[in-house]
């Protein structure tokens, strides 16, 4: 069987599995649709959270990104894992005790304010839409690269699959498909990583293999030889690294599609432990990615730098066809020159190649390539589904039930939830086919806004009994305006000064959410000190959510 046939077979089997699960877990009530009936086991929730969290970007792009950033790649490694400590210790158990379906519901109740709830709904919708458009695009790209179908058709196939299990099963359907998707994606990531680790270091554990004596030093040496900075040296200013890492961590802890997962477990203690399982499952991939980055980069430089073009290995010419590798023989000597100097460099390498080409570089059998395709799709679909659910819940529960028609029946609300999920799938698909130009920069946007709005509002709602509606709302608005303003300024208004010299204190737009969080807190405390404390029954509510029983 050839690569194409294997890929169709494995991707087809994985899709059949997801649909089978969806049919078995239909949601019959809003409680099931929003939070899977609150009966998910902590282990299953941990896996579902991990799949929800790890997107197409984590699976396909992250290792490549790190391999070009060297040590600075740690901003993503730490930034996208450290937030789980904050979630587990500061938010998840208390939100579980509070026991509502959505983040805006918590914000609205805790700050006894309709305005607060509406600000939260708008943030949740905006953040989720930004994010989901990128995921649908990711589905299309995987389809087009591995199965040679058009990106548009790939997006539509992805939409149909997500539609089936998100609209029928709600959170219940999503949760159990995500468990399956985690298994598919982690297996698909680890198999090539383990084989490459054995090939290069004789050690089957990539995390240990890439620390085998001399490997990283060799990469440092090769990089310097070609004119790049040493792999283990930092290029960005420490303050910027600090701010980006913090913004990503705080954003993680404030993202609604992550928080809502902790409403699906039965008890407070389950919420705590399932955050632990989630991070453990995420860490498997996140500690492997930097190893893959080192293996792939070393292997790439050693193979192609100074190689005669007519003796290039098969994978090199294969991936040239997809234009992920491009070679222009500037000096016409038939030798591939790879250097840091753009004037003499003859090789353009797309960062995604580092994961996508791994199976071929390690000369693994054809079915492994099919597996990597299925893994990339699992990562993109699981994240998209989680986000779509947040969108549908925000619309049906916070907007329709909470504001426009509070009197509607449970059945009508469930119908609205399905309609909203269906509408969101179609809209997301549209953005997947016609990606708005801003999508690339906007992941930073999503994290920055979550860090500057939700995280402080929820944190203060739990840890400060004195925090009142006036403080929290002005804090959220100040944090949002500051963060959005800074990002929009450097992206649209004055892109020429979007560089370390132009930024305030050398903090890039990616890291500004951290400052936005500080602005939020400062404003919140200042305003609440000048306005009356919340009513006694609100303070009692805070006391209640602080203890498990």
């Amino acid at each position, binding site marked *: 069987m050839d690569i194409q046939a294997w890929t169709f077979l494995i991707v087809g089997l994985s899709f059949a599995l997801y649909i089978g699960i969806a049919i078995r877990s239909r949601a019959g009530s809003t409680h099931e649709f929003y939070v899977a009936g609150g009966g998910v086991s902590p282990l299953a929730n941990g896996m579902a959270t991990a799949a929800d969290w790890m997107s197409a970007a984590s699976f396909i792009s992250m290792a490549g990104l790190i391999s070009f950033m060297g040590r600075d790649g740690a901003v993503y490694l*730490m930034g996208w894992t*450290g937030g789980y400590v904050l979630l587990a*210790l500061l938010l998840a*158990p208390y939100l579980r005790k509070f026991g509502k379906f959505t983040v805006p519901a918590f914000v609205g109740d805790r700050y006894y304010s309709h305005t607060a709830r509406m600000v939260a709904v708008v943030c949740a919708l905006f953040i989720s839409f930004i994010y989901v458009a990128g995921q649908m695009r990711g589905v299309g790209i995987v389809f087009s690269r591995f199965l040679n179908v058009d990106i548009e058709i790939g997006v539509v196939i992805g939409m149909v699959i997500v539609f089936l299990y998100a609209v029928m099963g709600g959170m219940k359907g999503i949760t159990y498909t995500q468990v399956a998707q985690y298994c598919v994606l982690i297996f698909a990531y680890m198999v090539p990583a383990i084989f490459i680790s054995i090939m290069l270091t004789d050690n089957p554990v990539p995390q240990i293999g890439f620390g085998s004596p001399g490997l990283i030093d060799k990469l440092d040496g090769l990089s310097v030889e070609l004119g790049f900075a040493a792999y283990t040296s930092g290029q960005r200013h420490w303050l910027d690294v600090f701010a980006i890492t913090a913004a990503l961590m705080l954003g993680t802890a404030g993202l609604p599609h992550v928080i809502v997962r902790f409403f699906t477990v039965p*008890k407070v203690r389950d919420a705590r432990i399932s955050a632990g399982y989630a*991070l453990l499952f995420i860490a498997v991939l996140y500690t492997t990615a930097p190893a893959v980055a080192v293996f792939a980069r070393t292997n790439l430089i050693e193979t192609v730098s100074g190689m005669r073009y007519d003796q290039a290995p098969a994978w090199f010419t294969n991936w040239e066809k997809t234009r992920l590798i491009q070679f222009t023989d500037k000096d016409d000597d038939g030798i591939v020159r790879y250097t840091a100097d753009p004037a003499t460099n003859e090789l353009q390498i797309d960062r995604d190649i580092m994961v996508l080409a791994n199976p071929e570089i390690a000369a693994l059998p054809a079915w492994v390539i099919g597996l990597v395709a299925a893994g990339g799709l699992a990562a993109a679909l699981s994240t998209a589904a989680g986000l779509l659910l947040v969108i549908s819940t925000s619309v049906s529960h916070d907007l329709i039930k909470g504001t426009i028609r509070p009197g509607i029946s449970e059945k009508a609300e469930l119908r609205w939830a399905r309609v909203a999920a269906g509408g969101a799938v179609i809209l997301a698909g549209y953005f997947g086919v016609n990606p708005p130009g801003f999508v690339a920069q906007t992941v930073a946007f999503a994290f920055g806004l979550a860090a500057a709005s939700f995280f402080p509002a929820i944190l203060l709602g739990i840890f400060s009994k004195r925090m009142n509606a006036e403080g929290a709302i002005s804090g959220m608005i100040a944090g949002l305006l500051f963060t959005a303003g800074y990002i929009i300024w450097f992206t649209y208004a004055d892109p020429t000064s979007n560089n370390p010299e132009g930024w305030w204190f050398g903090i890039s737009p990616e890291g500004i959410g951290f400052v936005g969080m500080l602005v939020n807190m400062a404003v919140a405390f200042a305003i609440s000190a000048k306005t009356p404390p919340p009513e006694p029954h609100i303070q009692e509510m805070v006391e209640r959510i*602080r203890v498990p029983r």
Partner: protein
Amino acid sequence: MSHPTDNARAYWRRNLTYLAILLSIWFIASFGAGILFVDWLDQFRIGGFKLGFWFAQQGSILTFVVLIFVYVRLMNKLDRRFDVHED
């Protein structure tokens, strides 16, 4: 009643102590070892890794995982000691 019981207050104080200790370790392992002191730590080695680089790309993540499981253990014990456990 509008005032928490002494028991609940003592439980919350102990919880805050745990949080302060665990989050300090969280900060030191990531922002400290992985960012602020990374160059200084690079003079030491762990296997083939420079120590600062290892913390930035491996050690911090492993520390995060351990921290959550330690927290879960501590809190489960604390819940029982203050008789606020759920089962």
